[in-house]
């Protein structure tokens, strides 16, 4: 994966985007041996035989971190592979992605966890598997958390198949606490949402589609927060989507419960109305919600209740999405369009967008060496132009999949370079 230019990398004339730096000052940054070697005012680092990036005012940010992606490997390589999914990640500025375990077979073993990280997968960026919390994600018997973490798993979850049983969730939280990892919950009481294919609201009624209520999310979040309070473990709520669930997290935090959460770009930007005439690219789980929910998510991000943005990148083959709405699979791709949407939600403030895309996720996972710009930190970097306008074109996407509601849409803010361990990733 890495070869060619082993020289140190000098990024010249960049604007540095991290807490405590004035964004308009120009800096030069030198990386060496995969770490940040120097950050100096522009012109202070003499040019030697470095590989050079003339940033010319681009923003340099710690590499983006996505806590929630589906890379589909092993087992569903017709949708995506680790190689193509991480190529899309690199194009979107992500240097670390957390791969969900709903592969085929389910990633519930150290063997699969290691297999996913093996060099043969040809990943373009760092892949941190999130392993299954229960065997086969059946919700009955815990997996071996310690062995999974030793194999490189960053956390555990049964994403897509929520852990419904109180006792097993309680056990999962206790076991995760021992290891200092969060339990990530896809909060959906599937007993309440069965058959639901979109948000329960006026659009669902009009289209004659069965709805998933906000209550199906909020009730699991409430239950999990009680269990997290009792166990003093770390609960992370995946892709939060409703006012009610967000309110539960807010109250939990006030009580001092260790609960964090993420929001997806599509829930920030779109509502259930976008389903329009049965557009399966707008069929996600959790579903696109109401305008009131969407606005609450913006507020939650700004007031810090929501820790970060995660894409829930969920690629599917065209023929799978080209079906009756109730038969089509849930999900949208998201890695390549996350930055402009984060910038939009941040009102154009780069520091804020970077907090949601890099600093926030690193902090909540307790990762010290990434998600930060300081001498000695890992040189995983993203250079972007917050003003550049561009159109997201299917044929230019690095993902194998094309299922995005944003195909053909104009965005502002584009990733220009992604740097992993001090090396420029080939586009």
């Amino acid at each position, binding site marked *: 994966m890495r070869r060619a230019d082993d020289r140190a990398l000098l990024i010249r004339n960049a604007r540095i985007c991290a807490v405590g730096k004035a964004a308009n000052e120009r800096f030069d940054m030198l990386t060496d041996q995969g770490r940040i070697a120097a950050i100096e005012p522009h012109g202070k680092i003499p040019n030697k035989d470095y590989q050079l990036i003339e940033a010319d005012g681009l923003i340099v940010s710690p590499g983006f971190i996505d806590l929630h992606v589906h890379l589909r490997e092993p087992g569903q390589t017709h949708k995506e592979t680790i190689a193509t999914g991480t190529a899309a990640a690199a194009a979107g500025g992500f240097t670390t992605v957390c791969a969900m375990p709903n592969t085929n077979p389910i990633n519930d073993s150290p063997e699969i966890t290691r297999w996913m990280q093996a060099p043969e997968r040809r990943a373009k960026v760092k892949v941190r598997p999130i392993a299954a919390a229960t065997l086969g994600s059946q919700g009955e018997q815990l997996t071996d958390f310690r062995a999974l973490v030793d194999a490189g798993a960053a956390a555990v979850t049964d994403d897509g198949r929520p852990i419904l049983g109180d006792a097993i969730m309680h056990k999962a939280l206790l076991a995760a606490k021992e290891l200092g990892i969060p339990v990530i919950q896809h909060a959906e009481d599937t007993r309440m949402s069965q058959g639901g294919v979109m948000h329960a609201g006026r659009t669902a009624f009009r289209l004659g589609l069965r709805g998933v209520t906000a209550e199906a999310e909020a009730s699991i979040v409430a239950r999990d927060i009680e269990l997290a309070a009792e166990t003093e473990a770390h609960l992370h709520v995946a892709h939060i989507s409703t006012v009610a669930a967000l309110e539960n997290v807010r109250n939990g935090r006030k009580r001092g419960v260790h609960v964090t959460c993420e929001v997806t770009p599509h829930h920030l930007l779109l509502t259930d109305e*976008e389903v329009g005439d049965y557009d399966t690219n707008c069929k996600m789980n959790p579903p696109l919600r109401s305008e009131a929910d*969407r606005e609450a998510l913006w507020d939650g991000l700004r007031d810090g209740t929501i820790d970060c943005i995660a894409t829930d990148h969920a690629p599917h083959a065209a023929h799978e999405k080209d079906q*009756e*709405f*109730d038969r089509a699979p849930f999900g949208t791709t998201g890695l390549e369009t996350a930055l402009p949407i984060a910038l*939009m939600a941040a009102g*154009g403030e780069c520091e804020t967008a970077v907090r949601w895309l890099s600093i926030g996720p690193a902090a909540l996972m307790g990762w010290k060496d990434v998600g930060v710009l300081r001498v000695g930190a890992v040189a995983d970097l993203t250079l972007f132009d917050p003003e550049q306008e561009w159109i997201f074109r299917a044929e230019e996407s690095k993902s194998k999949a094309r299922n995005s509601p944003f195909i053909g849409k*104009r965005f502002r803010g584009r990733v220009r370079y992604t740097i992993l361990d001090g090396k420029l990733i080939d586009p």
Partner: protein
Amino acid sequence: MTRGAIPQASSKIQSRSIRSASLRAFSHHSRSLLDIESLSDADIHSLLKEAGRFRRVSIQKAPLKGRHIALLFYESSTRTRCSFELAAKSLGASTTLVSASASSIEKGESLVDTGATLAAMGADCIVIRHPSSGAPHVLARHLRIPIVNAGDGMHEHPSQALLDCYTISEHRQSLKGLRLLLVGDIYHSRVARSNALLLSRLGAQVTFCGPPALLPEVAETIAPGVRVMRDFDRALPQADVIMMLRVQKERLAGLQISADEYVRDYQLTPERLALAPAKALVMHPGPMVRGMELTSEVADSARSLVLEQVRNGVAVRRAILLRALGGRA
């Protein structure tokens, strides 16, 4: 805002502005009948007018001679299927019936492939009945021939609403101000949705009546002016047309209402009908479950338009097929 442009927001943006250009923007054959929502007022008036002509004048020529209409039925149906078939044949078209149980659909062929196959064989139009809401829209997105929705899931049944509307118009001078009461399992009913959309568009005052388990409050958002009432006895005195919907016992299973309670509160009996204005009409899209949503006395009474609805169905579907295939009677 330019089409498709995403605004750089300093404040909250309207999600509508992001993708509204793509809402209902997919191009389908302009003579398709996918739902009442996408029909123009002019379409509605000309369809009703054409249906009236078919009722009064017998057809001499065969305007659709040489045309092929595929009837693609993923769900069983008596009156809708026969009615479309008779309508097609009376206009000179040939028909092919494809049903889910006796075709490659059983072998897992996709809807899109099935539609493309029929079109490749020379079907000029596909009439589709499907248990999934939006199935006709999937076909319309992929095929260049007109698609006629003969009922899709819980979504719409536009030809039924048009024939209901036509039937009412034979008895009432104007639909403006007409008080339509739709009773029963509104939530699962494509007939209820299409009728509420069509008749409220034409100026009728639409009221849904039923228990919460079968009629969520959100139903009133389907069109401006639509109301929800729970008490059938209080709704009846204000009804000019009472449209009863089928209630399937199996749908009541697991809900907060038993069949006995349903009958007690919502069955249309002669005693209840007496609460309605003397000239109030009773309609039912069929199939009726006698003894459930209405009694035989009511179904067979002089005020019941059930068989008129069926009769008018053929004329309305002639108008729909003629519009789809662009012929002139």
